[in-house]
């Protein structure tokens, strides 16, 4: 258990059964009064943020979070399927749980899954992934100014802006943190 004096930015605790991370923290002590610990907390499942003020003597359960290396197997109507690379155990995540990461998940890709107890709560992708272009209509004729872009769709169904020279079948390097095109790997 944590005590209120352990509270600090970045600490992960359980409130009403859900994991929260402290995003802002301030120690206050009004004149001759008791110590108060003011926290801004972010729910790690929903992203919802809230303010809470705690007192000396309050106790907190540490959020039991584990990172596990997993391989993405495939996606079907039931969701996204992953395999633990040490135990070969399989787990499933819904599209909602996968979130933005669905744009970049490719079969056999290695990712880190963050678990709260037994529940997977987020996916940590490699910073860069390579994905194939499945659709890239030619750019508008005459639009050749430097930096001009056109939309392209990748094998995951994700659509992004790419340079005009990109064609169907190209392999692109994508930054998963920004979702943006980095470079063309090969034709």
């Amino acid at each position, binding site marked *: 258990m944590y005590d209120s004096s352990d509270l600090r930015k970045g600490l992960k605790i359980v409130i009403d059964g859900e994991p929260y991370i402290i995003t802002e923290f301030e120690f206050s002590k009004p004149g001759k009064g008791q110590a108060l610990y003011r926290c801004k907390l972010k729910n790690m499942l929903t992203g919802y943020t809230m303010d809470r003020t705690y007192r000396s*003597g309050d106790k907190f359960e540490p959020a039991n979070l584990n990172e596990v290396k997993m391989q993405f197997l495939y996606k079907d109507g039931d969701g996204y399927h992953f395999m633990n690379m040490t135990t070969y155990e399989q787990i499933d995540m819904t599209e909602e749980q996968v979130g933005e990461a669905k744009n970049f998940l490719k079969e056999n890709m290695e990712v880190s899954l963050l678990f709260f107890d037994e529940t997977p709560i987020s996916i940590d992708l490699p910073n860069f992934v390579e994905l194939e272009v499945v659709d890239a209509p030619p750019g508008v004729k005459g639009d050749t100014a430097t930096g001009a872009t056109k939309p392209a769709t990748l094998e995951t169904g994700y659509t992004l802006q790419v340079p005009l020279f990109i064609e169907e079948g190209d392999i692109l390097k994508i930054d998963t943190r920004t979702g943006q095109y980095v470079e063309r790997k090969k034709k």
Partner: protein
Amino acid sequence: MVRAIRAFFDSLGYVELFTPTLTRAPAPEPYIDPFGVEGGLYLITSPELNIKRIMAETGLRKVYQIGPVFRRGERGRVHNPEFLMLEWYTIGTTYMDLMEQCEALFDYVSGELEISFGRGPYGEKVSLSPPFLRLSVKEAFKRFCDRHPDPFESFDPVVFDRAMVDAIEPALSRHDAPVFLYDWPRERASLSKLKEGELCVAERVELYGGGLELGNGFTELTDPLEQAKRFQGMMRERLAMGKEELPWPQDFLDSLKDLPPCAGMAFGIDRFLMLLTGAREIADVLTYPVERA
């Protein structure tokens, strides 16, 4: 800055004291915890008890002390467990005089350092020229959190502290000059005199500037019996919270009967320096905060 503070008090005929930093009996406060060291000794959380004792025993009428004080468990943006405290006491004055003395001190020090305005840790500009705003605790509750019950009718320590931290302190931090918050509930004044005819009110004043609590003072309680009763109450509160019992300050109580009516102020020098320099956190004005000390 410390030189300017000394010059201010020296010019007014105050005597500088060096009372002990190690004590056998720190002031029993429910929410201030001393560091205990070997041999039944504690580091002082304030030099108050020793200063009042020496005044009672020697007849000194105007004294000040600058030195470190220590409070366990206090670390945050504007807290460090060791900090530099200025305290001054004047026979024959009340907390009303303290407010004027604070204004004169600010005026003198900022003049010596040629600083025309300060800045709070959240960036607000704060004028340093007197007069400062004077606001009673009752008025502050009415003005900034009128949905709270009157703390002078029913005092709940949790409700009171939250109102202070969530509503009143933020409101005061937006004021463009320092603010004296005065006339506190008696529950929040273990060593101060109560107001004549208004026994739920303590003659206590806190000075705020730019959201920083800079100083705390009061018309001193000089009645040994009443003081002993208050200490008993504070000890009970400590025990009820599961805190350790502190030694009974009998030497202090014995000398209190010889202390003439007076008022004294405790003033955080590091926080004052924060205000004058616009520092964002106390670590910025310390040579080393506790983690690196």
